[in-house]
């Protein structure tokens, strides 16, 4: 295995970013199976739509779009 400090720091940075984003997605899945009301689910769905829009724009930008 080959690693150095820069690689470790970069990995920690990516894990931190990814963990926060993945936690948000996971909490969304919890809501899918939970007992939220229709209004609460509608609100969460609207938030998810907005986040997907941002995620799409971000990825396209980072991939050079």
């Amino acid at each position, binding site marked *: *295995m*080959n*690693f*150095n400090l820069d*690689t*470790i720091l*970069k*990995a920690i940075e*990516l*894990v931190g*970013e*990814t963990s926060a*984003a*993945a936690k948000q*997605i*996971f909490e*969304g*899945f919890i*809501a*899918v*199976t939970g007992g*939220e*009301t*229709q209004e609460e*689910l*509608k609100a*969460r*769905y609207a938030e*998810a*739509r907005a*986040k*997907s829009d941002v*995620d*799409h724009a*971000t*990825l*396209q930008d*980072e*991939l*050079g*779009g």
Partner: protein
Amino acid sequence: MARPPNSQGAREPGSRVHLTFKEIIMKKIILALAGALALAGCNLAAVQIPTSPAAVADRTTLDERAGLSVELAYQAANLAIRTANRAGLLTPAAKAKARTLDDTAFAAVGKARAAYDAGNASSFKEADAAARSAVADLLSLVKG
């Protein structure tokens, strides 16, 4: 997905491939996200037709749950690709393919939204399935 050479220089052709620490960490992250996507599929399966009178009260939330699942599945796949790209694991060719697949998946998600907004159950079911398929195609870039 091409693996970058390690800091010792380019890999010898035909030599055994040894993953760097960064590659191992990134693969673990990507596999975890793939698991999240699989969970999305399970949740979609779990929100089918209610089987008891008590469950009928939840029927009105089925579309919201399915729509939310599609958005979350897209976000999980998007995050997996973003993480792989930020870790430097995507070749220029893979980036170009990812851009196209991401656009396709996002367009499919848009069709599911339109069907939901129109309140058309049959078109929503069709668009929902198409969106999940397109998201799976996007995720395939970083799986295995």
